[in-house]
């Protein structure tokens, strides 16, 4: 493999995604894996998988996104650090240039982004409630004793979806159990859950936003057939699920890195995947907030910091 490649990495609370694109913005490698509480380790493993698959690739630039973006950026040496809302929108506009609305539902959060003429004009993110996210669906599938794939298959079969309350996890759960008890079919309950979740998303996150087609639906939850069907029914238009729907955040970060076109990438080399990069926390005592600040330590040297409510530690390397 020749030429310059751009790497995008999206590490959130549930999954770590990595995408490698070539100079023509084509995806040459994509990786999706669970974080399981260790964002740095997940990023390292993903990087190792990339190295194994494309050992010759020269990395011309790295973009990091996701809620662990600052941590990952410091550890790997990223050229651009971008919030996931912008990264997801960038990827959606890239794959579907006439997109008007981007719906992204991940493990812990959900967002809607309104795009006009390839420019983000408005967005919203779930604020106070986690009911409309992937982990909610996971939990319900588990309760029904279904794998998430089986859950997805069952939803499509439903003929008369059950009405289920969806404002909040607790309510939905108790309502679902009640519906099970009075004898609703499982596939109808499953589809009912999907509809409740989509409705909850449209009511909570999208309120006051003008949802116009084409709608691009991406993020971990977009793999779920039931959710695709639910949005199609509620929005009265078929949402477009892009090929790389699971890793759109990483794709966006890679595209942003390509757009930034750094002269020399800050990438610290593939050997970062083997190094024992460690983190340590300390409590900043400079004000009454007493924030926890995380230091990223590589071979005894502090390569970056993140955390805290004021910005003074963000990205700062070297001794305290």
């Amino acid at each position, binding site marked *: 493999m020749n030429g310059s490649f751009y790497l995008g990495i999206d590490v959130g609370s549930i999954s770590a995604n990595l995408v490698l694109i070539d100079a023509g913005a084509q995806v040459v490698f994509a990786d999706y894996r669970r974080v399981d509480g260790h964002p740095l380790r997940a990023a390292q493993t993903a990087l190792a998988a990339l190295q194994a698959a494309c050992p010759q690739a020269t990395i011309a630039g790295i973009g990091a996104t996701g809620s662990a973006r600052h941590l990952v950026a410091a550890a790997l040496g990223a050229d651009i650090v971008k919030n996931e809302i912008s990264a997801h929108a960038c990827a959606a506009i890239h794959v579907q240039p006439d997109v008007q609305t981007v719906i992204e539902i991940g493990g812990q959060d959900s967002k809607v982004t309104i795009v006009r003429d390839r*420019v983000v004009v408005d*967005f919203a993110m779930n604020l106070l409630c986690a009911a409309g996210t992937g982990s909610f669906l996971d939990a319900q599938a588990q309760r029904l004793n279904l794998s998430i794939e089986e859950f997805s298959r069952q939803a499509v079969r439903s003929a008369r979806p059950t009405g289920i309350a969806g404002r909040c996890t607790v309510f939905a759960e108790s309502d679902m159990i009640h519906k099970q008890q009075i004898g609703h079919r499982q596939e109808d309950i499953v589809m009912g859950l999907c509809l409740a979740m989509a409705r909850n998303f449209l009511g909570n996150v999208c309120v006051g936003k003008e949802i116009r087609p084409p709608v691009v639906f991406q993020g971990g939850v977009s793999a779920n057939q039931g959710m695709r069907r639910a949005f199609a029914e509620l929005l009265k238009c078929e949402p477009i699920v892009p090929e790389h729907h699971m890793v759109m955040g990483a794709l966006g970060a890679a595209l942003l890195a390509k757009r930034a076109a750094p002269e020399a990438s800050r990438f610290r080399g593939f050997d970062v995947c083997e190094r024992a990069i460690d983190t340590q926390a300390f409590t900043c005592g400079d004000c*009454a907030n007493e924030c926890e600040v995380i230091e990223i330590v590589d071979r005894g040297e502090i390569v970056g910091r993140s955390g805290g409510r004021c910005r003074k530690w963000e990205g700062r390397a070297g001794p305290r």
Partner: protein
Amino acid sequence: MKPGLAIQPWGNYSLALAASVECLRVEPWTQRSTTPETLRLGVEASPEFACLSFKACTGHFIKAAQEGVRYGVMVNSRGTCRLRYYREIQQKILKERGLDLYVFGLGYDGIKPPLIRHFDPDLLPFLQCCARAQQKTLAVDALEKEAWRVRAVERQPGDATRVLNECLADLDRARTVPEIRACARTFKPRFRNVPLDEARLPLRIGLLGEATLLRDRFLNHNLEEILGGLGAEVRNFFLLGDEMRNIFRIGLFSRNSRWRLKRLARPYLEHLVGGHALDSVAHALRCAQEGYDGIVHVAPAGCMPEVSVRPILRRLSQDLDLPVLECSFDEHASHVGVVTRLEAFVSMLRERQENKTRTRK
């Protein structure tokens, strides 16, 4: 020993509020912002669906009582929103927990507010004290404005905040009106020493909404500094100097008088709602007139007045092409989520700004 008097934390104004009670021969007890501990105490003690401002303030009084403070003072709003009942419910909560802290209301009943009647200060020290508090408030206002401007273009992140804190410490030490004035005169030169990145074109973002959240940097997740760090010059529309003028009905024709704001908001809102909801609408319109790049509307989750005007702000945002970011906060709000949203908002505004300059060329 002088008795302690707990005063609600109100951002950098806390020091001005503390100065205002000196003549009562009490030791003011306050904090510049809510802390994780006081918020936790407040959340535990408060009704579940009370607003975040109430919970934070209640926690503050509980903490004060635990530290042996015997008195507290709370604004006694005559308004329409929940603020009106804060004092009384807080008093009940303190009593239930066996805490001996009496909260005075700041409202008038009869001729003097009960706080003044209880401590009965002499007239001359009282007036001097009021003058000092007013001077300090105005000094804080001036200081904040400098910090907002400099923070957006500072070369070294954190410089503006550092200078701000140094100035505040000096201001807190200043005792007499001439001292306060002399101190305030040093602010501009001090900020002038901060190295700036002249090439950077700052975005202008208006912050409006509920007063406590706009001012408490813990409750609002340090909105001002995050936006400043992203290269946005913020303008926080809650200025206590203006508010005092409105309360005491002076400066009727000043830019931010109630009367002016009402006239400004009229095409969108024809009546006072309560709290600062009308101010929010009026200031949003002003932001549009003055060419701001965007506004951030800040409110505690479920805030009665501010939530009521959200549909109006949305319409206004569409009519006048002014992006609005709605931020509701409660005790569960995640800091990471707030930062992500602010970053996305700023990058959206940047894109708009670039498009505008491009089309202008």
